[in-house]
């Protein structure tokens, strides 16, 4: 009776924008226990609803939204919601996880998953108020920023929570995001999928009670974990400096802070983009995802030559719009970040694309005429201008809005050598030339170069985490099982909706009690890891059906060039190491040499029906 007595909404809601028809299905206990929620539900429905042959920006793609199992409960940091669609950036599995309140509202409306198919005839938004669902005109909102859209819909609808796109999504920028209260489902262009459906926003008002199986136990666990969180060393570090707290360490102690489109692994001009510099000056207080007792966000008020305000700047953005563009101006960086949020585009891919264009410019592949301006590394104002151009698809921005892989194909002239991506996805801020396990994780992540599907950077950079010890980041040995294990581990977090910054606090052990309190069913580490493995395999199956081939899984050319300076000087990943790590991973996964899951493995995971 986990669905009835636990913290589930109990139903899946499907809306077809073409016909404006809705459908509700109940979920049963066996389904809930097999997939948990969040990424588990996403993995199931992506494989059953979305045609892998679909054009990612066509009617046949779907947008799926699934709050994690713990969303809507008091579980600290358990408020994450996942969005899914076939990615217009990679042509395969697309997902983004956010800490906005939209999933909480969906659950309160009585749903554990929302599936949106078809295409609206005109700009529209979806309004869900408990059992009532309406598709409404958004013609007056088209062209508006994420912030304005959210405010206007709230004015009209009252107490709704709004997830919306900006002009980036409208203009089909292939890395447009979905934003909910300054939190983003950031990667892979899910915002462009909404744009392609003429869907400007999803507004949800939920008024129902969210139950937990054992309220008394829940309250005592809340006390316990609240105290664990606020007494954990990361509480102060995250609270004072946010996710960029370890920037200096990444740069100086590890030499793995990618700089100037991955030319270097250290950024000498980093002083002002380090949160130890900017947080005391510009951050006025902390900002949190819903349910979080260990906030890492910052309310940032930009002063000086630029004005504005944002929730940020996160570590990955300090790299992407900062070091990757050689940009040492925190004001320009924060402004570019704010514009990315308002226009609804991914800061990591945007910074990847701008750094790529700067590299081409400095190497004579792009001219001043083609760009419409000078575009040197280190020019913060140019970074701000380029964000504008990309979001509006103006001039060179139209090409860069395609992502570096497609942009390099359009530009030609050897531009692909400078395009840093894996399967079309621009990577985050970990110079994998000296974090080799993360190099493998970039290749095996279902959404392309990604740090969060494995979260193995922490393990690789410190040498230990969970059951691993003595891990050598500079070695390519024994990485297959490590990355597969970490991916399974993290898939559990994404199914439960738990923040990955809690992973060293909860590990998997804590979830036994927390599941007992929330759904009345205790699950041990082994049981959870099987679910994690099932989810990872389902994501891979979706990719295979989209045309994934082992030959397309490779690290960018820049990863073959040794890091030129810093403590990791000389390190790189050779072709031999790359191939070996990938084979080790396939073997650890129980897949064949081509990277295809074996029948036995799928049978073991009870998902054999998905691979026919």
């Amino acid at each position, binding site marked *: 009776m986990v669905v009835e007595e636990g913290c589930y909404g109990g139903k899946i809601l499907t809306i077809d924008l073409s016909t404006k028809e809705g459908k509700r299905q109940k979920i049963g206990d066996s389904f809930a226990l097999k997939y948990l929620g969040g990424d588990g539900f996403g993995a199931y429905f992506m494989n059953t609803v979305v045609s892998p042959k679909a054009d990612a920006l066509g009617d046949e793609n779907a947008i799926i939204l699934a709050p994690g199992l713990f969303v*809507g409960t008091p579980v600290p940091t358990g408020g994450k919601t996942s969005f899914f669609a076939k990615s217009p950036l990679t042509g395969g599995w697309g997902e983004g996880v956010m800490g906005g309140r939209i999933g909480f509202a969906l659950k309160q409306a009585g749903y554990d998953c929302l599936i949106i198919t078809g295409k609206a005839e005109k700009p529209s938004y979806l309004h869900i108020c408990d059992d009532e669902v309406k598709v409404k005109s958004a013609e007056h909102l088209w062209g508006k920023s994420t912030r304005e859209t959210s405010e206007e819909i709230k004015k009209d609808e009252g107490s709704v929570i709004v997830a919306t796109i900006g002009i980036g999504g409208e203009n089909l920028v292939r890395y447009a995001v979905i934003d909910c*209260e300054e939190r983003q489902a950031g990667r892979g262009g899910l915002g462009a999928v909404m744009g392609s459906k003429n869907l400007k926003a999803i507004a949800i008002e939920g008024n129902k009670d969210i139950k937990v199986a054992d309220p008394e136990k829940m309250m005592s666990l809340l006390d316990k974990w609240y105290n664990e969180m606020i007494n954990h060393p990361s509480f102060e570090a995250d609270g004072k400096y946010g996710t960029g707290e370890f920037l200096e360490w990444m740069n100086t102690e590890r030499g793995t802070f990618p700089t100037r489109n991955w030319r270097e692994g250290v950024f000498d001009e980093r002083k002002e983009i380090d949160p130890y510099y900017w947080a005391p000056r510009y951050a006025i*207080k902390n900002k*949190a995802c819903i*349910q979080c*007792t260990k*906030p890492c966000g910052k309310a940032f008020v930009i002063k000086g030559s630029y004005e504005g*305000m944002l929730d940020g700047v996160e570590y990955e953005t300090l790299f992407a719009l900062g070091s990757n563009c050689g940009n040492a101006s925190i004001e320009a960086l924060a402004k570019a970040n704010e514009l990315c949020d308002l226009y609804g585009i991914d800061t990591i891919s945007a910074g990847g694309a701008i750094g790529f264009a700067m590299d081409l410019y400095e190497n004579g592949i792009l001219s001043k005429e083609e760009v419409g301006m000078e575009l040197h590394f280190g020019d913060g104002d140019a970074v701000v201008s380029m964000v504008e151009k990309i979001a509006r698809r103006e001039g060179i921005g139209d090409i860069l809005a395609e992502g570096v892989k497609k942009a390099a194909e359009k530009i030609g002239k050897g531009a692909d050598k400078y395009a840093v991506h894996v399967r079309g996805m621009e990577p985050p801020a970990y110079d994998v030339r000296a974090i080799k396990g993360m190099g493998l994780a970039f290749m095996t992540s279902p959404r392309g170069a990604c740090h969060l599907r494995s979260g193995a950077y922490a393990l690789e950079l410190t040498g230990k985490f969970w059951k691993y010890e003595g891990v050598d980041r500079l070695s390519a040995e024994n990485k297959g099982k490590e990355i597969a294990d970490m991916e399974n581990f993290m898939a559990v977090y994404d199914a439960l909706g738990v923040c990955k910054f809690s992973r060293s606090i909860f590990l998997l052990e804590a979830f036994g009690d927390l599941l007992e309190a929330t759904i009345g069913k205790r699950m041990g580490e082994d049981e959870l890891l099987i679910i994690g493995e099932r989810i990872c395999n389902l994501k891979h199956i979706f990719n295979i059906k989209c045309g994934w081939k082992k030959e397309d899984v490779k690290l960018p050319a820049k990863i073959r060039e040794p890091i030129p300076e810093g403590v990791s000087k000389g390190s790189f990943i050779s072709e031999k190491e790359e191939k070996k790590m990938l084979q080790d991973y396939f073997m650890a996964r129980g897949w064949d040499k081509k990277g295809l899951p074996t029948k036995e493995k799928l049978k073991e995971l009870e998902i054999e029906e998905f691979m026919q």
Partner: protein
Amino acid sequence: MHDSMYVKVIPEKCCGCMVCEIVCSMYHWDVVNPNRSAIRVEKKSVVEDIQHVCTHGKECNFECVDACKFEAMIKKNGMAVVDYEKCTGCKACEKACPIHAVWIFEKKAYKCDLCNGETMCVKHCSQNALEIVR
């Protein structure tokens, strides 16, 4: 015991996590539902979050008690408390409250009762954005 005690809000520190709303409804009603919470966070802008909660006479003259025609809002130990047997959800208290710290949901009024002195919201605020004032 509650005479002149109240929860003071410090919006400059509020991170907008909504944990106060969640624990309030959980503690009192065994469910999570911000509509049943006696403290509410208003997200005004990217950098402004403001909590609303009753200050038990500190910023008012118990207008809610005077406004209630059903003797459902009663003064007890220096606090206004709801008698749920009598409350009809008529909204008179909600309208009368000068600081917008009483809410009606499904025909019942919700407002702070200091959790028998446990003040769960204060206890679980990671940012010290809520304080007990005696």
